[in-house]
């Protein structure tokens, strides 16, 4: 019996798509139907604009951790002046070429592979409610965001993301070191 190619294609696609959506709906690890990255680059001035609420934590999300908050350059400088810890997510060789003065290098590529216990061990001298500013090379790299989420998931609940990164910091004439 000759079976039409289009029938075969339709059957495979319909079975796969139906199965995919059903499992995704029933699974506790299912994902949203539309990926939402709208807040990824949003700098919320209500959380970073005035002195009163600059230190405010991000919202507690469904996954059970406090969402990191994006901050502009001025807020990053203010935190820097207050002695807040800065975490640079780039690889060591990039970090060595230049970084924000006093920043700590936590290489995202390496860090994301670690277990929660190992992550806590790396950050053991930082209190869970202490502010940490995560950054990377510039606004074209997203390690700052990804690293911030790794730290937030490990239990640190006041993470800020400085999207402008090292490039903007250096251009602003703020303190750097090699």
């Amino acid at each position, binding site marked *: 019996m*000759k*079976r039409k*190619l289009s*029938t*075969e*294609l339709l*059957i*495979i*696609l319909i*079975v*796969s*798509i139906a*199965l*995919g*959506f059903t*499992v*995704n709906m029933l699974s506790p*690890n*299912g*994902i*949203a*139907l*539309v*990926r939402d*990255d709208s807040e990824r680059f949003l700098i919320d001035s209500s959380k970073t604009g005035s002195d009163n609420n600059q230190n405010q934590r991000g919202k507690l999300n469904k996954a059970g951790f406090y969402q990191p908050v994006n901050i502009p350059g001025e807020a990053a400088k203010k935190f820097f002046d207050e002695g807040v810890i800065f975490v640079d997510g780039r690889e060591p*060789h990039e970090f060595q070429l230049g970084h924000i003065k006093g920043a700590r290098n936590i290489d*995202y*590529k390496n860090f*994301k592979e670690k277990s929660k216990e190992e992550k806590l061990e790396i950050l053991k001298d930082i209190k869970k409610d202490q502010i940490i500013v995560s950054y*990377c*090379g*510039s606004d*074209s*790299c*997203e*390690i700052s965001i*990804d690293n911030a989420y790794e730290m937030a998931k490990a239990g640190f609940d006041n993470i800020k993301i400085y999207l402008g990164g090292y490039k903007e910091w250096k251009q602003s004439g703020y303190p750097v070191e090699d």
Partner: protein
Amino acid sequence: MKFLSNKYFLIALRIIVGGIFIYASLDKLLNQEMFSKAIYNYKFLPGIFINFFAITIPYIELIAGIFLISGIFKRGSSLIISILLILFIVALVQAYARGLDINCACFELKKELENADQKSDILLRIIEDFLLLAASVIIFIKSKTIITKEIHQ
């Protein structure tokens, strides 16, 4: 090139290609969020389609792989696998050309020299996908010939 029509050669090809697709689908099925992020990192698809593909592609790979090995829909499954491979190759080639660092989930456009290792990884995956594509196209063409022969007999 007579061996290309050899029954056992085609069965072996189906098991290899189908097996690789089933294996590749499992990791994505178990880590859909990570797969969604991986697609995002390719900067290839508009945001609203990313999760649709993250949800369906692993199952298309799985079902097409099972059908290909079992021989139920050889032509349909080999054609779908070929189309998927072409999509993967296009995504990888554009990532390679643009210097995207897709493995580390960052998109910094690095200098070519610094990125040499990452680039050769992507290149290797492009070559692998081309080999799989060749195998899949052979299965598609030869399955058609066999069906046609059966009808004429």
